[in-house]
């Protein structure tokens, strides 16, 4: 049958991890990544990399939980290895605090993270505006370090990288047998997906090396995520907002909200700010589709629409996408043997 040529579109955390998964798990595949943007300029790079996810309203909870667990397990083993700092993956503990107790006190991911429990009254004293809290330990995965690490592993598995923008799946149909679409917001034009929309997030990076815990407000708007060389403060969730430049009003507002949660931030030095557009959809699109190109039919595995959960779900969706690619190859054998 010969080698199966796979083209992966997108080199963010979803594209690179999916490409790597396919290259490592399916030996007969030759994988090439196509993208116009690479680390450190992808949306994944700006994200804090905090492994925590909001629910996708249109995706079954157990499917989301499996993606999260697969990703958590994968990152957890990296964090315990000697490669942790090479990959930018490490453990972090902290608190999620709520002004009013939420309806769901124990979320579906409580047993995926480590040591989940409710905060004690003594712990809540540090947050006078908040009445309820969850304490747990999770992982952080910093893409400016992780993506180059993934790419290196990918190239070691004979993966190829091709810079350049893909404007039409048809461009790839001549030379590739299977297309894997990890183009994030790019699928708006590439796949004509009108369900996809940006949710704008603006963040600040500050110098505050004494901060060791994450603090997240349950409303999802205010968060403090200590990183390796800076602390990420956020944020905003502005639906259908395409502005890629930082808004000074958003900046001062989020800084104030973060200082209210962690007063020592007032002493921190601001380093940079950044804006990213979360590629959001009602449900994450992870499925096969047959693409008609002239007389040929080329299978496409879609893996996009991760919203703000790209990093925390990436490995789980990469594994599932790889499974779908295997199915495509299986069907091909079947078709060619008829």
């Amino acid at each position, binding site marked *: 049958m010969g080698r199966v040529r796979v083209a992966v579109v997108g080199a963010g955390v979803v594209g690179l991890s999916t490409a790597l998964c396919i290259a490592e798990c399916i030996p007969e595949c030759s994988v090439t990544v196509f993208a116009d943007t690479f680390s450190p300029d992808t949306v994944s790079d700006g994200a804090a990399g905090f492994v925590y996810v909001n629910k996708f309203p249109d995706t079954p909870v157990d499917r989301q939980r499996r993606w999260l667990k697969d990703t958590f397990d994968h990152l957890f083993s990296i964090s315990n290895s000697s490669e942790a700092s*090479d990959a930018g993956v*490490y453990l972090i503990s902290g608190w999620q605090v709520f002004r009013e107790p939420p309806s769901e006190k124990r979320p579906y991911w409580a047993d995926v993270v480590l040591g989940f429990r409710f905060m004690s009254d003594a712990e809540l004293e540090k947050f006078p505006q908040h009445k309820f809290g969850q304490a747990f330990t999770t992982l952080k995965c910093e893409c400016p370090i992780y993506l180059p690490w993934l790419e290196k592993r990918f190239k070691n598995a004979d993966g190829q990288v091709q810079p350049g923008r893909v404007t039409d799946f048809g461009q790839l149909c001549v030379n590739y047998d299977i297309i894997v679409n990890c183009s994030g917001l790019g699928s708006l034009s590439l796949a004509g997906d009108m369900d996809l929309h940006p949710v704008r997030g603006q963040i600040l990076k500050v110098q505050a090396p004494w901060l060791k815990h994450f603090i997240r407000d349950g409303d999802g708007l205010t968060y403090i995520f200590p990183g390796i060389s800076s602390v990420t403060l956020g944020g905003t969730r502005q639906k259908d907002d395409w502005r890629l430049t930082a808004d000074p009003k958003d900046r001062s507002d989020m800084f104030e909200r973060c200082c209210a949660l962690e007063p020592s931030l007032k002493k921190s030095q601001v380093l940079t700010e950044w804006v990213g557009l979360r590629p959001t959809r009602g449900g994450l699109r992870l499925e096969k589709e047959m693409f008609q190109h002239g007389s040929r039919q080329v299978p496409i595995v879609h893996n996009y629409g991760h919203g703000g959960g790209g990093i925390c779900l990436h490995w789980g969706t990469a594994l599932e996408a790889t499974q779908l690619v295997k199915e495509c190859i299986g069907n091909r054998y079947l078709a060619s043997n008829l």
Partner: protein
Amino acid sequence: MRVAVIGAGVIGLSSALCIHDRYRSSVTPLIIEVYADQYTPLTISDGAAGLWQPYLYDKGNVQETKWNKETFDYLLTYINAPDSIKMGIFTQSGYNLFTGPTPDPSWRDSVLGFRHLTPQELDMFPGYSYGWFNTALMIEGKSYLPWLMDRLRERGVIFYHRKIESFRELVDSGVDVIVNCTGIRAGELQPDQDLKPGRGQILKVAAPWLKHFIITHDLKTGVYTTPYIIPGSNSVTIGGIFQLGNWSQECNSQDHQKVWESCNKLIPSLKHARIVDDWAGLRPVRSKVRLERETLEYGAAKSEVIHNYGHGGFGLTIHWGCAQEAANLFGKVVEEKRQKAKSRL
């Protein structure tokens, strides 16, 4: 009244502050002088990692458990204060690891969120089958001591850079109360068979991806003899040396290797951490903290001494509780002098 504090580590400076705080209005004039040949950043308090954590069990020294708790509660009140970073205070969570089930420590209710480790967490640490997780406080001497000195300077406390050779020297000069916070060198002023050095050697490494303290324990070999990793605001302290009776303050390569190898085994990613510094210090070890009064008489000259030394490896952890007790003892001295003055009238 003239008060001379000997020693400018965390014990000396905090004792001076506490006494001044409590008695500046009721004792006038109150002249406080600090005498030391080592000031920050050269004291033992500066070299310590700065994690608030007492020894596991107080062995009946319930006073010490009380002083430890008082210190934690006191530092916690500053955690949201504007000065917290200047003071070198911040929270940090982490792991205490054991090779078998271990009774809960005397400080379990002092720290925040104390719990036992889950099986999944223990999977991270091969060789350890039991452990605890809690949120504690960091108090970094290199920031805290300068902050204490600023507070003392504001209050007119005078600092003398000189070694005191004998209590008599101070008594003869007319000092009313001596507060003896001389740590490991207390024996030079008054022999103390119970005071011994507990030598420690640490490495400071650059490993900013580490966000938790990790302390291993071997109840047979004793405290600080097995690896520990304590991230700070600037670097990560790694250690695991405790040599009772060793007076050497020089770093040696054997201890360096032991610490480096054992900590790498515990946390493999340390392999990529750049070593930034080596340091050795002598913990002032004693069966219990010496915190008590003594009257010294040299002919006609008389002085009260308040001893406050022998805090082992938990000086920063216990300092405020002890400073308050030292101030209590000072208060008794003041009271006795008043009674005496009254009875003479």
